[in-house]
């Protein structure tokens, strides 16, 4: 099946490896993913105030373009995924939003482009069992832990991604690569998101809690699907120094591990 791929701003700049490895893995799995030519910014955050329709223009423009291609739209960045899912929900369920936005953009869009996260493609369309079969360099012996963050899971009524309190998709993914999936309590807690720009101290504390809890549970690597989570979790590793000198917990995009496990030969050095 052919998919339209939506990369988003960060994957073209600070998180190139996220997109590169996603494409590598897709090729190895025989998934045809073609970048949506007309893509533009998703808007970064979903507008929460009821009268704000303007921030919906940008995501709807990309969605409408994808609609013309007639393919599922695959996302990687959790934030983009969140915005698209909710923009679709608004266009579908809120008549005023739909009329205003599609009227302004002069497009005919009814909110029905199917937006799927790359992980959902792996789970529902490839299947973790098949991934397990395709893995050539299993990550055996590695104790990895999922870090879900917020945007993929909540609000469940609009995201329909996984159980918001007890998600399993990333753990199933980790196990399919041959690694051990370690549980720890903070995997669905917020990392502080963009507060790391305005409230650094707070973001540091929040990340500190997550990292320490992961460390207590023997986690050797965190697996994420969001460039902002990646940034925050990687940036505040110093929180660990007071308990364990210097050494931090590496943070991986799930696609990095996937590409690595699907590749031939001895496991490569970890990418940075």
């Amino acid at each position, binding site marked *: 099946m052919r998919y339209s791929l939506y990369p988003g701003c960060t994957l073209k700049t600070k998180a190139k490896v996220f997109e590169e490895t996603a494409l590598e893995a897709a090729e190895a799995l025989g998934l045809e993913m073609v970048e949506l030519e007309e893509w533009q910014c998703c808007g970064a955050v979903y507008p929460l105030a009821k009268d704000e329709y303007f921030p919906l223009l940008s995501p709807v423009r990309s969605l409408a373009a994808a609609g013309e291609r007639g393919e599922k739209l695959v996302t990687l960045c959790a934030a983009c995924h969140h915005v698209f899912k909710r923009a679709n929900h608004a266009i579908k369920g809120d008549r005023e939003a739909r009329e205003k936005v599609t009227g302004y953009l002069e497009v005919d869009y009814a909110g029905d482009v199917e937006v799927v996260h790359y992980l959902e493609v792996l789970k529902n369309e490839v299947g973790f069992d098949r991934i397990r079969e395709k893995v050539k360099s299993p990550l055996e012996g590695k104790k990895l832990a999922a870090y879900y963050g917020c945007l993929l899971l909540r609000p469940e009524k609009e995201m329909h991604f996984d*159980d*918001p*309190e*007890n998600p399993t998709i990333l753990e199933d993914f980790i196990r399919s690569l041959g690694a051990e999936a370690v549980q720890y*309590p903070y995997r669905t807690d917020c990392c502080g998101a963009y507060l790391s720009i305005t409230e650094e101290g707070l973001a540091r504390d929040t990340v500190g809690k997550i990292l320490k809890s992961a460390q*207590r549970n023997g986690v050797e690597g965190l697996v994420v699907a969001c460039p902002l989570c990646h940034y925050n979790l990687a940036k505040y590793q110093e929180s660990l120094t007071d308990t364990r000198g210097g050494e931090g917990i590496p943070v991986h995009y799930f696609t990095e591990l996937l590409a690595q496990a699907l590749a031939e030969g001895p496991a490569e050095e970890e990418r940075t």
Partner: protein
Amino acid sequence: MKRVGVFVCWCGSNIAATVDIERVIAAARKMPNVVYASDNKYMCSELGQASIRESIEKENITRVVIASCSPRMHENTFRKTVAAAGLNPFYLEIANIREHCSWVHKEGEVGTVKAISLVRTAVAKAARNEPLTPSSLQITKRALVIGAGIAGIQAALDIADSGYQVDLVEKEPSIGGRMAQLDKTFPTLDCSACILTPKMVDVAQHDNITLHTYSVVEKVDGYVGNFTATIRKKSRGIDMEKCTGCGICYEKCPVKVDSEFEAGMAKRRAIYVPFPQAVPNKPVIDRENCRYFTQGKCKVCQKLCPAGAVDYELEDEVLTVEYGAIVVATGFDILDLQAYGEYGYGKHPDVLTSLEFERLVNASGPTGGKILRPSDGKPPRTVAFIQCVGSRDQAKGKAYCSKVCCMYTAKHAILLREKVPGAKPIVFYIDVRTPGKDYEEFYNRATDEYGATYIRGQVGKVYPEGDRLIIRGVDSLSARPVELEVDMVVLAVAVTARADAAGVGRMLGITTNAHQFFNEAHPKLRPVETHSAGIYLAGMCQGPKDIPEAVAQASAAAVKVVGLLNKDSLVGNPTVANVDESMCSGCLECTQVCPYDAIKEKSITERRGRETLTRTVAEVNEGLCQGCGACSVACRPGANNLKGFTNEQILAEVDAVCL
């Protein structure tokens, strides 16, 4: 020419403050067929009724319209008034100018115009009212009670003590219900079994009670006074006559499965007695798990039984019995906690439901009454009780208050402290609700004498850290974050209606509310009756309630049953459907839409010229018909007509409103 009299009621200021009575009367006088119109401050009063009677006689009135409150209030009163004046009581028509009018309109002009319109409508219908005569129905002097928890037991005993035969049907192998699973009962802390088991024994020994355990009611037909129920007595695989209840059979059974009675906290065998005080105290074979039934061999129990009572070939028995009245006491379930991942139930063994904790405290329970952590068998030092898990939750659970949790949580706190000296109960609550005799005092004892700390705030998350559980929450009163390390968490889970309640409701022809609890006929004035005459409610199946309330309701239901069975005959409802056979095409669509199964096909023979033709028509059973009118709506040629609400009458009303 019909002579219609119109009587407009003020209802004090209820109607008169909004509706201009003078104008209504003036308008009424000009309506077709109206020969008289007057008003009264309280038409339902003795004086008001007398004025109606006098006017009927003096003005030679033949049809009566009373503009007043809803017919649900005083239709019967006024029918008697009209009858006392020598008219057929069904010559009366009520225009509801209170609930439908003065109570919903603030502005006098709108209210007055609408009142006039409603009166005109009623006048148009009344002029077409025909005399109706109720039929007389016989009553079968036997009652059926469905469900043998405390409510069903109480209802059965009360009916039986009044001298009527009762069949008590219970789907589980033993009677006793949920109450049998409980340890102590609030607010007196007497042991649940100690007060329940004597009643269970009474039931078993009562001459007027026939007990059908491990049985289900599969079908109910008929109507008040004349129900016919089909009861399936599932095969226990045990000859109840031969079995002595010695218990050897289940000691050697090789299969172990989770015990339902112990809420999964202990195992039982495939042949088992659910609990030591079970009634009847004879085993049952669980065919889904029995090795003989699943794999075709074993038969250990049969070999060991000294009485030769084990008989795998025994089949279900199906009874068809007639009843005059039915009490529904089917009880409740507890909420599935799937949607509450934040509390960690099912992921951590030391997070328990309140029912599981109940078994943990009970002397006959899995730990012999010692409160021990399922994870490591150690007594907990600190236990957090979280209330409103699924209750008062419009998003993921049930919007209603489960009513019993505040009290049993206080009880749990007390029992914890009694069983594990020095242990600390901590209760998370939203509001503590203790309306009931001695209830607030009981809650006070938990805090004052038993050291329970109450924290007002719902818990955000429960997760394990080492061998303990961390609780993150907030004390909303002090606005301080709360982080506790505890040994055990007990969730006060919402009570819910039985999963099959809607289906049972359909079988019985009674309705359920949005949460599948059975609807009473009136929330205040008819709390144990249903909208189906002769069917009554008792216990949790009608809504959350505690033991005293369930027992009180059961006794009330029993009184209703006895009151009904005491009558020689019943007066039928004359507003029933009627088929004009000459018009009926026999399509039988009405038989499909009738919710009461009151219409059947019938063959008639008629002469057409020289030919004799046989054809199919529909026929209404007036005993079953509830007068809902669905058949009249479905009948295309209008052959099926509801007496008292005929097509002609309804069209006259519509014309009166529209033209």
